[in-house]
């Protein structure tokens, strides 16, 4: 399904680490898959062409599904240092510090924690505020 993009010269990609909002940069090109106008910071050169962040994420997901992987072990051709590319795969394994041998395990289990620190449990609250999966459930109202 094609989408009508905003053709006012602005980047049509979303920005934001915790809360998604419109990118305020000007577009410098268009995604080769969905034609979304994007700025240079939301442009990702891949084997499938120059993609926007959304399509690049989907491409990774599809690639992962094809390979039958549950975790991304290879970062492939994608620039994981890109600050705009904060997909979940970036952190896979890094937050799992409950199991001995994992990165951060010893530190996590030896230091004092402030009760005001964010924990994994806070993720649900953020998800409720900013990451809802709208337009997927046809039984909602």
């Amino acid at each position, binding site marked *: *399904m*094609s*989408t*009508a993009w*905003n053709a006012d010269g602005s980047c049509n990609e*979303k920005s934001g680490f915790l809360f*998604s*909002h*419109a990118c305020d940069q000007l577009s410098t090109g268009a995604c080769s898959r969905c034609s979304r106008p994007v700025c240079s910071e939301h442009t990702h050169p891949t084997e499938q062409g120059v993609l926007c962040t959304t399509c690049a994420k989907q491409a990774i997901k599809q690639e992962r599904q094809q390979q039958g992987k549950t975790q991304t072990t290879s970062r492939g051709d994608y620039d994981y240092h890109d600050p705009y590319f904060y997909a979940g795969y970036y952190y896979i394994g890094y937050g799992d510090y409950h199991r001995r041998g994992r990165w951060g395990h010893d530190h996590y289990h030896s230091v004092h924690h402030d009760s005001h620190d964010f924990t994994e449990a806070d993720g649900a609250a953020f998800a409720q*505020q*900013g990451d*809802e999966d*709208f*337009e*997927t*459930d*046809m*039984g*909602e*109202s």
Partner: protein
Amino acid sequence: MKRWLVYALGGGLGHLTRALALGRAAAQRGYHLTILCNSPMAASLLSDDCPKRIALPASLELILLDPQAGRDDTAENVLRILARRDFDLLVVDTFARGLGGELVATLPTIPQPKVWIHRNVSPRYVDQCDLLTFARHFNLVLVPGEDAPLAHLPRAFRTSPWTVCDFGDLLNRSDARQAFGIPVHDFLPMAVVVGTGRPDEVEAARLAAATLYRRLAGRVHVRLATTRSTGESFAVSVWPLMVLMRGIDLLVGAGGYNTVYEARQTGTPLIAVPQQRQYDVQSQRLSVEESSPTWSAAVERVTRWNFSKQRAGKRFENGTHAAVLQTASLLDDWALF
């Protein structure tokens, strides 16, 4: 005769009821409506087991899509119906981009005038799906009686709340009470629990009604109003409940659009438990006095309710008529230019 196609997809009965309300008012002005919906409750509402207490226009056409169908199948059916172009006006209720986002590519290409019914929705939905940008594809935005995130748009037109009944449709108190099985010479007050929504919500309402029925026996009549009979002696299958509002001394239910505005428009006291929805923000709609956090709290409040208070019956204005006039004006302008 001009035909309006109304996109009223969404769970529950709210979208369909609002569309039927518009359809009744539109029919009075000579317009025909086709309503597109996928509510799993539509079938029970339309069945003969649920007596209809108002007349629906003979010209009304209802297309019920499979409520169990997934997004892709539903979207395909919606787009197929839109592609027929056999309507003079498209009305989209609540979900400007479609419930599954399926209207995004198609809506801008539809040559007929387009109207968006914009009731209150989650501001996160408005933001994440950028409804502000998409709203420009609509020629008119109808705001039916409550504030909404984009109600400030220049094309927005605010009306009174929309209800499926006009003032003249309401039965008098005695007839309404008889419809609930209460004899003419019985003067005990009556509380009615509304059992609509998802199956678990209907079950919660049924349990609340059963508790109140036992607890208030001999003091207050308690009834459960549903569109599908649950088998209990206190359950009444009725649609629309609003017709019987003059017989109700206290309404207990959720915080959906129709329940709340039917109660307020008729001056019926309401205790409501706001339900979690992805788009509808029921807690915002309810006042502090109306809202109860849980069904248990609602039951406690009903138990302590002072039923001797006189309810404030009042004449009300049904916003559907102003909405139809404004839409008709749009059609007239469209024909000129």
